[in-house]
C-alpha cells in the first residue's frame, strides 16, 4: 500500500499494525493527532489528566506484557520525567514507546527545549524520524527494540515531521492488540528501593553499552557516500534539508541518536576532509562527538534558535553568520469572536488586578486589546505563582493578585495548587478563576476528565471542578455563566481574605459551532482549519 500521510497519522498506523494494547497521552501540539488517529483507526486510545499519569498507566500496561504508545509534546516530558528516569531502571515486560514531539521555533509552545537531552540523562534509547515513512518504520522498530531489550524507547518527531505529509509504503495488517493474561511478578526488578535500585542502575548501563554496540552497525543510521571533501552528520528533518542544500556531500544520518553510535561517526569523520554536524536545536550530536574526541565542525550559535531549512543549511555550510532576514510570521492569533473568555478579560483589564496566567487560549489575552495577564510559565503555574506573589507582597499589593486557569489545565496540574492554597493560605487569602469552556480548546478541542467524555467523545464519569475545590477545603466557591455574577463574586473575593474559587462556565465558541454542524463539510471553508489547534 502507498499513501500520502502526516507523520502523526503514520505513527498511529504503525501503532495499529504493531498491535498496541493501549495508546495514552495528554494533548499538546504537535503530538495531539497521534492518539486521535489511533482511535479513529480502531485502536484503544485514552486521554489522561496529564503526561505523568499517562506514562505511569503506560508503565503498568507494559509491566503486564502489553504494548504501549504514550504521546506528549516536548514540555509534557518534563511532567512525565519522574517516571521516565526510573522506568529506565525497571525496564518493562512488553513494550513501551514514548513519543516526545518537539517544537523547534515554538510554533505553539512556551519553550523550544531539545528532548534529545532527556534520552541521555535518563539513559533511554531515542529514535529520530525525518518524515512519515520513517515515522512508520521507526515506530515499528521502536516496538521491536523495546520488546527485545525489555526497555522503554523514546521516539522524537518534531513539528515539521508530525505536521508534514509524505508518501508512506506499508503492508496493510489487521489490528491484533497484544492482550496479556496474567501478571508475572518481578519484585527485584520493579520495586525501586535503594537495595534493588543500585543493581538496577548497573543493569541499565550494561544494557546501554550493548545497545550502543548494536547501534554502531544498525540500519537506523544511514550513510550516503559521495564526495570525500565534505561529510555532513545530521538527524531528523535536517537530513532532508541537507540533501537538497548540498547534493554533492556525503551524509551520515543518525537515526538512533542515543546511545550514540561513536565508532560509526568516527569512521565517517576519518574518511572526509571537512566534517560538519547539521542539527536543529542544541548541539547534541556535536557534544557527543566532543565527548568521544571526534573532531567535527559545528553550526554557529545563531542557528541553535528556531528551525533549520534549506536556506539556513546553505548558510551554515558557507559559515555565513551575517544577520538573517527576519521571518514574517503574519498576523498573530487572537481570542475568537464569541469566545467566552473575552468577557472575563475585558473585565479583568479594567480592574487593577495582578493576573497570574496559565497556558491555554486565554494566554492570548496578554495581547491587545486586553493585555490583562502578567505571567505564564507552565501548565498549572497560575495558581502557585499567584500564591507566591501573595506570600511576598505587602497586604495591599497582595490583595490584587488573582490566578486564571482553564478547565483542562486545572485538571492537568491545577489541583495540587489548590491543595497548596488551602494548606498554606496567604494572610490575604487568594482568588482562583477557572475559565471552564468545557474543552481543551487550545490544542483543538480534546475531551478531558472535566467534560465527562472520553477521547472518542463517549460518555464516562465526570470530574466536577467545584466539587473538587470544595472537597479540598476552598472556603468560597462560586459557579456562574453570567458575567454580572462573576463581577460581583470577584469584587467580594478581592476583599474577603479567604480562599476563593470562581468557575466561569460557558462553552467554547468553536465547540458550540462544531456540535451544531457535526456533518462533513460541503465546501472547503471552516472545518479543517478550525478543528486543529496549537500549543
Amino acid at each position, binding site marked *: 500500500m502507498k499513501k*500520502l500521510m502526516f507523520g502523526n497519522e503514520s505513527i498511529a498506523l504503525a501503532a495499529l499494525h504493531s498491535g498496541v494494547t493501549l495508546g495514552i497521552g495528554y494533548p499538546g501540539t504537535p503530538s495531539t493527532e497521534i492518539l486521535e488517529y489511533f482511535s479513529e483507526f480502531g485502536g484503544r486510545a485514552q486521554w489522561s489528566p496529564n503526561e505523568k499519569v499517562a506514562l505511569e498507566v503506560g508503565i503498568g500496561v507494559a509491566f503486564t506484557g502489553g504494548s504501549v504508545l504514550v504521546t506528549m509534546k516536548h514540555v509534557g516530558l518534563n511532567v512525565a520525567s519522574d517516571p521516565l528516569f526510573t522506568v529506565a531502571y525497571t525496564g518493562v515486560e512488553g513494550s513501551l514507546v514514548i513519543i516526545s514531539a518537539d517544537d523547534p521555533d515554538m510554533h505553539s509552545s512556551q519553550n523550544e527545549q531539545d528532548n534529545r537531552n532527556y534520552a541521555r540523562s535518563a539513559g533511554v534509547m531515542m529514535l529520530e524520524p525525518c518524515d512519515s515513512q520513517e515515522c512508520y518504520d521507526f515506530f515499528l522498530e521502536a516496538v521491536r527494540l523495546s520488546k527485545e531489550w525489555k526497555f522503554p524507547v523514546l521516539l522524537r518527531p518534531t513539528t515539521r515531521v508530525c505536521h*508534514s505529509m509524505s*508518501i508512506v509504503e506499508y503492508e496493510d495488517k489487521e489490528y491484533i492488540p497484544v492482550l496479556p493474561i496474567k501478571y508475572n511478578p518481578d519484585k527485584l526488578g520493579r520495586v525501586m528501593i535503594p537495595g534493588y535500585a543500585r543493581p538496577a542502575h548497573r543493569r541499565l548501563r550494561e544494557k546501554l553499552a550493548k545497545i550502543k554496540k548494536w547501534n554502531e552497525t544498525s540500519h537506523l543510521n544511514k550513510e550516503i557516500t559521495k564526495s570525500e571533501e565534505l561529510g555532513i552528520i545530521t538527524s531528523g528533518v535536517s537530513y532532508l534539508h541537507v540533501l537538497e542544500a548540498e547534493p554533492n556531500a556525503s551524509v551520515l544520518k543518525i537515526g538512533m541518536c542515543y546511545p550514540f553510535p561513536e565508532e560509526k561517526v568516527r569512521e565517517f569523520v576519518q574518511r572526509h576532509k571537512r566534517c560538519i554536524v547539521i542539527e536543529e536545536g542544541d548541539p547534541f550530536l556535536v557534544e557527543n562527538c566532543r565527548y568521544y574526541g571526534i573532531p567535527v565542525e559545528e553550526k554557529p550559535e545563531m542557528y541553535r534558535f528556531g528551525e533549520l531549512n534549506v536556506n539556513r543549511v546553505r548558510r551554515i555550510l558557507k559559515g555565513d553568520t551575517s544577520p538573517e532576514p527576519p521571518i514574517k510570521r*503574519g*498576523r498573530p*492569533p487572537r481570542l*475568537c469572536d464569541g469566545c467566552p473568555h473575552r468577557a472575563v478579560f475585558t473585565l479583568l483589564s479594567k480592574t487593577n488586578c495582578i493576573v497570574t496566567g496559565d497556558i491555554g487560549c486565554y494566554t492570548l489575552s496578554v495581547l491587545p486589546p486586553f493585555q490583562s495577564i502578567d505571567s505564564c510559565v507552565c501548565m498549572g503555574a497560575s495558581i502557585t505563582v499567584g500564591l507566591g506573589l501573595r506570600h511576598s507582597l505587602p497586604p495591599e499589593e497582595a490583595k490584587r493578585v488573582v490566578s486564571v486557569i482553564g478547565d483542562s489545565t486545572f485538571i492537568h496540574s491545577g489541583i495540587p495548587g489548590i491543595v497548596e492554597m488551602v494548606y498554606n493560605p496567604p494572610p490575604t487569602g487568594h482568588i482562583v478563576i477557572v475559565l471552564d469552556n468545557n474543552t481543551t480548546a487550545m490544542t483543538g478541542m480534546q475531551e478531558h476528565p472535566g467534560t465527562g467524555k472520553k477521547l472518542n467523545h463517549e460518555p464516562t464519569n465526570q470530574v466536577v471542578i467545584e466539587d473538587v475545590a470544595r472537597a479540598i477545603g476552598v472556603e468560597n466557591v462560586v459557579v456562574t455563566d453570567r458575567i454580572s455574577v462573576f463581577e460581583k463574586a470577584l469584587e467580594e473575593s478581592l476583599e474577603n481574605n479567604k480562599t476563593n474559587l470562581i468557575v466561569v462556565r460557558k462553552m467554547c465558541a468553536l465547540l458550540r459551532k462544531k456540535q451544531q454542524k457535526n456533518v462533513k*463539510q460541503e465546501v472547503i*471553508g471552516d472545518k479543517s482549519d478550525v478543528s486543529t489547534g*496549537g500549543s
Partner: protein
Amino acid sequence: MSQPAVVNIILGGIGGTGVILSSNIVADSAFLAGYDVRKSEIHGMSQRGGSVSSDVRFGEKVYSPLIPDGEGDYLVLLHPDELENNLYRLKPNGVVIDISLIVGESRNLSLLNDEKYLPVNQKNFNICLLGALSNYLPIPYECWQKAIFLNLSKKVHEQNRGVFEYGMKLTKAFSIK
C-alpha cells in the same frame, strides 16, 4: 509547458479560509498523478484567526518538506491580506493566483455574493482558485476531481466540479518580477 524538477506551491490565508484543506487537495492530486509529494503546514494557532500557510512540493523526487525562500513557483492566496507575508517566498516571475482573477483588482470578497459569479461563491472560491492553478500544473484533470471527491462532501461534488471548471477558464494570474 516546461516544469522544473520540483514544483513548489505556497498556499496562504488565515484560519477558516481553507488553506489546509486546499493544500490537501493539491497534494492528493499530485500524488494521484504519480509524483513524489511533500506537504508541510503550520496551523498551530489557525483557529484563532492567525495566518496559516502550507507548502506543497511535487516532482520526480522531493527532499525538504519546506519550500526554500525565493523558490516558490506559485502562490495561491486565500485571503488578500496575506500577500505581503508570502511574497518573498516566490521566485522572480513566480505566479500569484488570488481572488482578483474572479472579481478584479478590488479583491473584495463580498463581491462574490453577486449571482453573476455562480456557481462560485464566498465559501467555495478556493476550489475555483485551484481550478485556475490547475492550468499551470502537469496534473491530469481526473486526478484533481478525484482529490476533490476524496476531501470534500460527495453530496456537492457536481457543484464543486462546476466551480473548479469555472476556475480553469480564468487565466490572467499575475506574475511577480
